[in-house]
């Protein structure tokens, strides 16, 4: 399973944000995408997942050779793509538990086993409760999440750390083949960061996941070790290297990238 991005150009409300991004994320490999604020990192994340706000004007996104461009976000999710969001939205009145149950059932194709007439209904295709509950309990223990948390409404009133943990819990249940982590370290204190990172590392090993870790700071990369590091600037990847690139960036900052670009022109 490979996520392949070819010469991707994206506009938002008429303004070009991504200006030709090319990148290949293989299974089992961790890529870090580092860049300053406003460079278009989150646009890349949302575009890959299919947010309708982002218009692709040129380029291609392939998952195992199949184009994602015409697919809705749910189709992409069912094919094994996952996006851990920087700002997960709240949905009032919907418990985390019922949401996880519905989402897990959807991604695992329980809907496909019911007659066509039952499609599109919330509850016509749920994973057997006992089976789900058992798996969920294991994941809760693994991520050290209090089961009482499940009865709260989805992301409503969650602290930054709770939101991120809930995102990783979703990832653990949906078992993606390629996951994009958008600023997962933001809003996490050091203990929460360690816990979430360890969770991600174990999952990656278990699932042989491809990872694209999008981050502004190198902090999370102290816990999730990248195989490949990309420096993102002004809508495109301007440098690619190994983990050492993280240290260079840490020492010299993004100014170094900007100057490098100017010098090269």
């Amino acid at each position, binding site marked *: 399973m490979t996520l392949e991005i070819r010469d991707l150009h994206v506009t938002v409300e008429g303004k070009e944000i991504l200006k030709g991004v090319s990148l290949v994320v293989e299974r089992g490999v961790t890529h870090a995408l580092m860049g300053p604020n406003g460079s278009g990192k989150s646009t890349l994340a949302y575009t890959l997942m299919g947010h309708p706000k982002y218009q692709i004007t040129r380029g291609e996104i392939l998952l195992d050779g199949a184009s994602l461009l015409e697919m809705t976000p*749910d189709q992409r999710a069912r094919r094994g793509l996952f996006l851990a969001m920087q700002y997960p939205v709240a949905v009032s009145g919907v418990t985390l538990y019922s949401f996880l149950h519905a989402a897990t059932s959807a991604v695992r194709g329980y809907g496909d086993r019911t007659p066509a007439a039952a499609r599109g209904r919330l509850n016509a295709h749920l994973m057997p409760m006992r089976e789900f509950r058992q798996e969920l309990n294991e994941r809760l223990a693994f991520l050290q999440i209090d089961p009482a948390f499940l009865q709260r409404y989805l992301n409503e009133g969650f602290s930054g750390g709770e939101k991120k943990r809930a995102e990783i819990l979703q990832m653990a249940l949906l078992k993606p083949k390629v996951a994009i982590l958008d600023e997962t370290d933001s809003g996490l204190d050091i203990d929460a960061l360690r816990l979430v990172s360890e969770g991600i590392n174990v999952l990656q090993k278990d699932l042989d996941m491809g990872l694209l870790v999008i981050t502004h700071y190198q902090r999370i990369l102290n816990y999730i070790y990248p195989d490949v590091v990309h420096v993102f600037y002004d809508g495109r990847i301007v440098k690619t290297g190994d983990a050492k690139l993280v240290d260079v960036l840490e020492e010299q900052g993004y100014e170094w990238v900007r100057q490098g670009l100017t010098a090269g022109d």
Partner: protein
Amino acid sequence: MGEAGADGWGLGEPPETDMTSQHEELRGIKDRDEYDFRTEIDYAHKSRRGIGEDVVREISALKNEPQWMLDFRLKALDAFLDMPMPTWGVDLGTLDFEQFYYFMRATPTKQRSWDDVPAAIKDTFEKLGIPEAERKYLAGVETQMDSESVYSSLKAEWEAHGIIFVDMDSAVRDHSELVQAHISKAVPVRDNKFAALNSAFWSGGSFVYVPAGVNVEIPLQAYFRINAQSLGQFERTIIIAEEGSNVHYIEGCTAPQYTEAALHTGVIEIFVKKGAHARYTTIQNWSRNVYNLVTQRAIVDEDGLMEWVDGNLGSGVTMKYPAVVLRGPRARGEVLSIAFAGDDQHYDAGAKAIHLAPDTSSMITSKSISKGNGRSGFRGLVRVVHGAERAQSKVVCDALLLDRESRSDTYPYIDASEDNVRIEHEATVSKISEDQLFYLMSRGLSEAQASAIIINGFLEPFVKELPMEYAVELNRLVQLQMEGSVG
């Protein structure tokens, strides 16, 4: 509500909060056809179409009513003919009173035992799941097919406590003094044109009396169903909760589809005595050709609590404003309602809280959803009279619009003649946000599923107040409303 309406229209939990467990039960999902069956019944008696003194006399005679009730009806008929149609709210321009039958009797005599109920009627109720519901949850069942109850029962344990739960016709016969002392005391005959109509032609409905200090632990249930074509259904219900008692009454309504319109004009009067607690829950799923024009009002004495829980999903047009009249000090009233207006449906619903005594409080929560060209309006009145010091009221209405054509209107009216009061009003109108949809869809849920989840979440504060079986039923009805609109 405009001047005409200000007084005229009397404006008149599931065991766990886990939604999914309810949904588990819904695997064998039903569709609207299930409610749209019609049972062929030989009507034992049917009035002529239209309004008239002859029809009133005929109804009263067929029921062997005492003279006072006939007089009451005739006086109400005069009031009805005299009063103007409301010119606000929904469009009643197509409502032709002459097109309806005002009385039909399904069986010659009322049945007491389920085994005696004719097969066709039994079949209807079996389809609606009434007997199982009774076995599982309910203390008593009072089901109404068209004009009269065909089956009623009340568990022996409640009878032992002196609780009366009978159809209104029996009450007029067997508890004449109690009925006479309460009928039209909360909703006067001239309160509005439809209350007058009901008073003249009423047929069926329930009478509930809970003696002082008695706590009715399990909800009493009535299930109304309009079966015949072009039938006016005018149930009249009176609930009396004596001092310190506690009662929960639930009403569910369905009607099959017909090309001709049907009229449902109920009047519900509730008397909550000192320190008593009454709750009245309605889930209304009339078919789209029903005019649903209902007056519900409760009079609450000191330290009493009245709760109206009102779900509207059916009917073509609905005008309904459950009211609490807080008559005694520290009386409390709550109205919690939802409305889901789909294509061609128009609701003008709301609530009314009248504070007549000091330290009274009211809470009105309204949630509405509009889809397609559906319109859902909220009309709320909070009135505080002089002397009702320290009265408190809070009105919250949230509207969710599912698409561009749908519409929601809010008409709050506040009328306070006392300075030392606290009245709050909050209103929100929202749409299903693109970001919420994207978030849920990025987790593998189809657009239809994601929308349904968001809507269920919006309704959750209402659903969690319902008994389990009603919560399940409501979720199912919401899904039926959703179909064809998304995904």
